[in-house]
């Protein structure tokens, strides 16, 4: 024991260690305060300002906007809609991404690198461009409907509605989900799967009892990430929704840019932050329960 203490470097006394920690954290805390906290607090303050129907804003405090949020059933519907659509998209993204991530995790060498590049390369293109791509594929006169027509099948309405938004947003979010899942696959060991197999577990049972539980941290992370991205996404729903899909994010955009009700836009933004906070709490609780 004494040999160990002789080798370990002497730590500075407690108080200056605390000072060191504070000094090291200070830059990021400052950036966070200026770039994030201050604007958010400003936004929160703005949600209490008075606003005229024309958009004129006064630095006078009122609860009118928050009251409107609480009393108008449209906003309750909006919140429920946004959360449920985002949850649905997150789930769909998970189901589509999991097999790809698992396959990627199990491959090796050059093939693995090629696959990884294929997975990440969509992120190099702007989401707007990819969204337009989906219009070309799913619209009434797009690739899919042309193929259906050639096969004699009736055309499907897959664009400028919730279907289009769901498909487009799922594809856009998949690279993030795949990367998060891959990070969480570190606990997987082929030997463990082999052990389960020798103990009599058929392939699907191995997946259900061994692989799935072990990858839950990656799943939780991926779902949190994709949920947050889905709730805050407004470009894709605006481009693919055809004006028929009403989500928190699109409403914030409309109130800020078209109807100029900034306090309402601020209120809805704070609401979105609260939703994110809730998601984060659920995430940490879930992880703690599992691990």
């Amino acid at each position: 024991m004494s040999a160990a203490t002789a080798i370990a470097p002497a730590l500075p006394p407690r108080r200056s260690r605390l000072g060191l920690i504070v000094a090291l954290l200070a830059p990021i805390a400052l950036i966070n305060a200026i770039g994030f906290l201050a604007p958010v607090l400003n936004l929160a303050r703005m949600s209490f300002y008075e606003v005229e129907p024309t958009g004129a804003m006064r630095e006078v405090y009122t609860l009118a906007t928050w009251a409107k949020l609480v009393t108008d059933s449209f906003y309750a519907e909006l919140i429920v809609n946004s959360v449920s659509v985002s949850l649905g998209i997150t789930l769909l993204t998970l189901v589509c991404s999991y097999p790809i991530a698992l396959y990627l995790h199990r491959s090796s060498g050059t093939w693995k690198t090629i696959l990884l590049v294929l997975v990440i390369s969509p992120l190099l293109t702007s989401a707007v461009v990819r969204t337009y791509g989906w219009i070309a594929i799913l619209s009434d006169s797009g690739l899919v409907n042309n193929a259906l027509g050639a096969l004699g099948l009736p055309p499907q309405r897959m664009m400028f509605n919730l279907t289009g938004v769901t498909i487009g947003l799922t594809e856009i979010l998949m690279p993030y989900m795949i990367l998060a899942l891959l990070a969480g696959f570190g606990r997987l060991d082929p030997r463990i799967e082999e052990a389960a197999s020798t103990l009599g577990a058929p392939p699907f049972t191995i997946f259900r009892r061994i692989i799935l539980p072990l990858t839950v941290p990656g799943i939780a992370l991926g779902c949190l990430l994709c949920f947050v991205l889905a709730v805050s996404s407004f470009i894709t729903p605006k481009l693919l929704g055809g004006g028929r899909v009403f989500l928190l994010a699109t409403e914030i955009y409309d109130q800020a840019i078209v109807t100029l009700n900034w306090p309402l836009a601020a209120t809805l933004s704070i609401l979105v932050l609260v939703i994110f906070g809730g998601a984060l709490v659920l995430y940490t609780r879930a992880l703690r329960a599992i691990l």
Partner: protein
Amino acid sequence: MTDQSTAPGQGLNGAAGEGFLSIRGLTKRYAGFTAVDNFDLEVPKGELVAFLGPSGCGKTTSLRMIAGLVPATAGRIVVGGQDLTTVETHRRDMGLVFQSYALFPHMSIARNVAFGLEMRKVPKDEITRRVKEAIALVHLTGKEEHKPAQLSGGQQQRVALARALVIRPSILLLDEPLSNLDAKLRDEMRNEIRDIQKSLGITAIFVTHDQGEALTMCDKVVVMNEGRLEQVGTPVDLYERPKTAFVASFVGRTNRLKAVAKDGAAEFAGQRVPAAGLSGPVEVMIRPHRIALSPAASGEGIAGTIARAIFSGDILQYDVDVGGQIVSVELATRGGETVLAPGTQVSLSWRPQDIFVYGAAA
């Protein structure tokens, strides 16, 4: 003493699988190289057999083929009369203990051990009872609710053993289970595994690269080299009657000396050693402690000069120069002997059955 060993290449093609585990012509070929080449083996019920060899000899690949984790390129695997060659792993009713233990990290010890029973749809209360027994068998009672990460290496190994045994498999396979443990623990576990295997009467295969482990634990040892079976036999057989140069040098310490054979005999340091059927360059092997050393004047044996004397407490080792080659001689110390100095002329002798001659590559 009956010779129960089998020479390489001599399969039991005639007998219709007398062993409980019968392996015939098992082969595994990868693009470019053959990992296991035409492996034949019969294992009677209740025996503990070691697959012994250096890394890359094919012992682990053979084990994994028996388990079904690696598909065989050719050959048959028959257990208790049932051909399992094409049966999937999860239906083979075997227990496998991994070198890295491969415990399920997200399950408690109890659930780890219970897993195989759950797969077999054993009723709940029976599972509880058998798990309790298995955990007691490996002396881990009280740790049922711990997670694997909270246990030491040795304890994890015991859990792995319990998990494989609780399902009462027809065959227990162990893939270098003790390699990750320190020496003292290894010795302990060696005895424990042997005791449990014997008390349960379970047929078991034990893969190892450590000849000490193989010799001390197992009923029979299969020596493998470069995918091929070199020799099968009891530890005594392998030690006293090695059939190939590889077995002779791998099992136990031995001197390796060069000579040339002509007309059925090899001349070595003035002595003629029988070398039936061999001609050309040969390897002559003799174990260091099977050589008697006496002062040169006695006239028996071959003459040599002491090059080095090494006293290490239990053993007195002399490196003796015989006709340009060094022969190591080990003598058990009895106290009171004089250590002969380098340069002393000595005479070396041995029994005929202690010298082995094998053909050598040119």
